[in-house]
């Protein structure tokens, strides 16, 4: 079968201790038997490891942070598009999705496709909207409250009790066992990620994760659940195993159907002692461990790229249960002139 040629730009090249999903997505795309891809890296900082991984990325460009606004991003993407003739962009960070949702039509007018959630679905699953999200779709979520000032924390702590989870609006979560720890977590996270801070009820139990792909019409194209086997001090999976829990698959189908989710996602779930599942978080992009799904027989990045280009993709019917991933770190030797190019000219 002739492979379809595509030039795809993607972000999340920060394969660090709290890794972005870019490299895993890149590997899935490069291993596709339906696509012949040329990958363009989109980096925010000049030391993201993916920039220097030339076997994965043909070229990498630095792009402005989301805080610079959508006009700046569009301008930079057009400069890149002029040189690389992009077919598709796969944004891999929560924080940049808002910009891409805003730019979706403008990008498409220039011939650049995306396959991302619609604005309503994106907004209603935000951490600070989770309680109303759970109520609307009849999905179990922990009780939570968004706070702008720490004095509002006390009411939440009385309602939820300790321990209590303090979360940043995009990233970071700290479990606090008393008000002092909560205040320190509030200060630390708000200094890094801004306000609001989300205060969430702590659900005791076993954590599970699931990644998948929705077609935007309510159908699940892919669902692969995983249990973390080894967790780093940052709470990231260093190793995990695919599992075959039908209840998780059913819950995920319900999520996709009711939100008519379009694009990749990750659900963070907690199973309590009664066996009830709670959705702790809905990440609106593929996770860093998505290569496990590829290894289990569901190449989600490939399916996402095909769907973005308007091709019909049949839903995956099976995946291997009991496949593991084990992450590793690797020192690359990088010539100074490469680092100089990316940090001076913003491209390599």
């Amino acid at each position, binding site marked *: 079968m002739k492979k379809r040629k595509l030039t795809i730009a993607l972000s999340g090249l920060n394969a660090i201790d709290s890794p972005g999903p870019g490299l895993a997505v890149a590997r899935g795309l490069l291993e596709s038997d339906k696509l012949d891809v040329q990958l363009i890296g989109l980096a925010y900082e000049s030391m993201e490891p993916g920039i220097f991984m030339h076997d994965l990325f043909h070229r990498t460009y630095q792009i402005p942070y989301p805080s610079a606004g959508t006009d700046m991003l569009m301008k930079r993407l057009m400069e890149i598009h002029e040189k690389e003739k992009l077919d598709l962009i796969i944004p891999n960070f929560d924080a940049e999705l808002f910009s891409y949702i805003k730019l979706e039509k403008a990008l498409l007018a220039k011939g650049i496709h995306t396959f991302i959630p619609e604005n309503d679905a994106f907004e209603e699953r935000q951490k600070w909207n989770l309680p109303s999200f759970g109520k609307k779709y009849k999905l179990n979520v922990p009780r939570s409250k968004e706070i702008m000032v720490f004095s509002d924390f006390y009411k939440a702590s009385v309602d939820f009790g300790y321990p209590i989870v303090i979360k940043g609006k995009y990233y970071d979560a700290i479990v606090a066992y008393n008000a002092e720890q909560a205040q320190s977590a509030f200060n630390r996270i708000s200094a890094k990620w801004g306000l609001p801070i989300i205060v969430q009820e702590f659900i005791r139990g*076993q954590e*599970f994760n699931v990644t998948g792909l929705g077609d935007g019409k309510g159908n699940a194209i892919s669902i692969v659940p*995983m*249990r973390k*086997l080894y967790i780093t001090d940052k709470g990231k999976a260093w190793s*995990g*195993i*695919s*599992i*075959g*829990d*039908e209840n998780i698959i059913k819950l995920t189908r319900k999520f996709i159907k009711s939100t008519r989710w379009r694009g990749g996602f990750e659900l963070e779930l907690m199973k309590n002692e009664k066996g009830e599942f709670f959705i702790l978080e809905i990440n609106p992009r593929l996770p860093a461990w998505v290569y496990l799904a590829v290894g289990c027989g569901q190449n989600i990045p490939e399916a996402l790229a095909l769907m973005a280009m308007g091709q019909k993709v049949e839903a995956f019917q099976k995946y291997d*249960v*009991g496949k593991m991933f084990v992450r590793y770190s690797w020192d690359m030797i990088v010539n100074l002139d490469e680092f100089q190019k990316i940090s001076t000219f913003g491209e390599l």
Partner: protein
Amino acid sequence: MKIKKDIAVSDTGFIFNPVTGESFNVNSSGAAIIAYLKNGLNPKEIPAAMVKDFEVSETMAERDVQDFINMLMHYQLMEP
């Protein structure tokens, strides 16, 4: 009472629960008890089989089998 049907057990005593992703290692006696259960013996029949196959008294076999089955239940590897 029997081992859940989707639980995978290797000859070396490695157990994998595909629903939870948990895995366990058991010694040769544990592997034998699981094999008896998989072959359709009910827990009350297992001590007698252990006495026949291992150098163990019936009292000790009864106690150890019960302990082991309790543990299998605790880890949700058995179905009623």
